[in-house]
């Protein structure tokens, strides 16, 4: 008897995976090259919850899913109000693979749980914070279906957090021009980043060399994210997927024993 089916079953039912498989199991969804440094593995991780928060979070979320929708991955938006189709298209999203759910905010969890069954990516502005048990079930389902959930508000249980800390619009020129682009500063697990979102054409663009000096906040960025986002205090371990696996293993063992 080989151990492989057992491992497969465990990983499917409980989200338990081997440490080796954790990092190279499934490739992440591709993202725009400008945004890929924000993610630890260079793309939108599958089977995990990602939060994008701060000003321009919707633009950032849409820009994140754009490359995947162009590869025929289906994406749904929940609780986004009425997004402007023109800007969705500007950000590079394939309109044929995007669906917007105009459902009441208090139903977002129910809608998401139905969509998880078949969609590859869900972009949600949660109407309320789920309870601990609802969250655990949601995360388990995400892991099982190997899909990505992007929340536009901080939610605990996320593995990657992107926080937009500063936005600087340019082009308006006090009545002499119109908005051209926005310089965005964002913090994520990989540190602090700067890019234009939206750039002059609407898509994310990297900052042209020598435009603006970045204030030296790189050093405290990563630590700041961990403490504000996870709230567990144990910054080094809490955002490590291996740690959550170990926690779950412990829970399983305590259940069984």
């Amino acid at each position, binding site marked *: 008897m080989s151990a492989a089916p057992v491992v497969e079953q465990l990983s499917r039912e409980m989200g338990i995976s081997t440490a080796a498989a954790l990092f190279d199991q499934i490739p992440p969804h591709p993202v725009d090259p400008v945004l890929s440094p924000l993610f630890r593995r260079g793309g939108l991780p599958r089977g995990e919850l990602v939060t994008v928060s701060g*000003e*321009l*979070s*919707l*633009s950032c979320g*849409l820009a994140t899913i754009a490359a995947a929708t162009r590869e*025929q*991955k*289906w994406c749904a938006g929940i609780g*986004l*109000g*009425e*997004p*402007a*189709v*023109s*800007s*969705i*298209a*500007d950000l590079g999203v394939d*309109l044929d693979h*995007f*669906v*917007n*759910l*105009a*459902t*009441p905010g208090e*139903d977002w969890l129910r*809608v998401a749980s*139905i*969509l998880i*069954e*078949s*969609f*590859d990516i869900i972009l949600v502005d949660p109407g309320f914070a789920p309870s601990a048990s609802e969250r655990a079930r949601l995360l388990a389902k995400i892991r099982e279906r190997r899909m990505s959930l992007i929340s536009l508000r901080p939610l605990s249980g996320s593995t990657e957090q992107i926080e937009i800390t*500063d*936005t*600087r*619009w340019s*082009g*308006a*020129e*006090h*009545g*002499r*021009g*119109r*908005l*051209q*682009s*926005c310089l965005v500063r964002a913090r994520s697990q990989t540190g602090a980043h700067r890019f234009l979102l*939206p*750039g*002059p*054409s*609407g898509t994310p663009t990297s900052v042209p060399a020598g435009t603006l000096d970045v204030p030296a906040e790189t050093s405290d960025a990563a630590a700041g994210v961990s403490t504000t986002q996870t709230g567990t205090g144990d910054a080094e371990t809490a955002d490590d997927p291996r740690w959550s696996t170990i926690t779950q293993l412990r829970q399983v063992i305590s259940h069984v024993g």
Partner: protein
Amino acid sequence: MSDEFSRTLVLTVPDWPAVAAAVEHGIGPGRPVAVLHGGKVIAANAPARAAGITAGNNRRAVGYRCPEAHVAVWDEEADNRHFSAGVAALEDLVARFTLLSPGTLAIPLDSLRHSCADEAGAVETLVSALVDDTGWEFFPGIADTVFAAVLAAGQARRVEPGQTVDFLSAQPITTLEYAGTEATGLIEVFLQLGLRTLGDFARLAAEDVSARFGAFGRHVHDLASGRETVPLADHVRGEQLEVELDLDAPTTRSDTLGFLARQLGADLLAKVRRQGLVCTQITIELDAAAGRSSSRTWRIEDMQENSIADRLRWQAEGWLAGGAAPRGDSRQEPDTVDDPAPDVEDFSEDGIIALRLIAAELTTPIGATRSLFDENTGQITHTLERLQGLFGPDAVLVPGLQGGWDPAETNLWTPWQQAAVPERSPSAPWPGALHAPRPTTVERLAVDVLAADGTSVEARPSGLEATPATIRFPTGQTEAVTDYSGSWPIESGWWDPERAVYRTRLQVVTDTGRALLLSKEHGQWYLTGRYC
């Protein structure tokens, strides 16, 4: 096993297009008639065939062989109309019959079991009634499946129960043409493969046929092997799906009826679709003001509102034509007392007062259409339909773009699986349309844009009157403006007060780092978009 169940009687009029053409042009039965379609003879009546005219001849060949033959161009409408009128006699005799195609109709034999002692008796009663009524020649055929019965009717024979498979296997492969026009290509291929009879073809493994010839090949294989086709076997009838329309005034105009039938047909199909089903047969009932009614069941391959409307029109025309002569008389002499058929006269005077469409046969769709290159589209469809069932069809929206200046106008959110109907052309030029970057969400919120001294900022075509300093939201919350764009007006449709648009737009950045799109219309500022 199911020979009792699906045993079918098919009655067919040989060379129906030629018969219909003769009726249409008022030609007597003894004269030769040939019907052309696409320059080739598709049907010829017995005198014409006796003169040597066969299917596939061109017009010149017809002229050589039989100069006195009447040559008519095929008229599908006339075919349907005359047949539908002609078989009216059946209405009093059988409970349910289906018009398979013009010239051919099918009657389930179990519906005759109570009125007739045996099959032969049933056929005799029906055929003699029809021949008395119409003067046409009817060939009966009985077999265990509809397809076999159609073939049997071509030879006017009765296939004993259980013998259908043997009967079919002896038929030449060319008889597959009765399965539909798509089969023509298949017949050639089968002949090249050396399959001469249906039996040769039926002996092939169903999987191989399916792999090589697809769904239609499998369908044809089922027909050739004497299996009932899927739609009939899958017959789902949860509830009676029907739509009804009472006309305000009785009408005899077929164009009015066709127009109403199209709307009614669309309603019925929408109803059927909401049940997740597909309608393959439809019963059309017409009520006349005088109390008579006409009911027919039609089998339609591609069920659409247009095809339903055509059938209804044909049925109504055929039915009304039954009373056409008395109607003409009564118009000329309205006070005539020696009217030959008062009931017919009444009805044609009043016309049709109500239409009813009933989904006679419902089946489950084979499956949602999938594109080869899309991943799990079927599951997506299923999921989204489930959400539409829970939250209403308008809750699941797919994006589209149309023409317009602002995001609120270019947005075209359409419910899933509905056709997008743009109100404004996307290809037309929209001078003054917003350029990228565009706001990500669309809003419509009345706000106040205040200058530093607290007065509202006025917009003029030349620009703003004052520097915007604060935005006050309806909630009373205010945000300071740190930067603002030039304002640019849009003026359009000034020639038409209904469509006149005049507004001034302004982009502002507030002290929270947010960018907003504002627009001033009729003296009021609105927040029309957020960059978020």
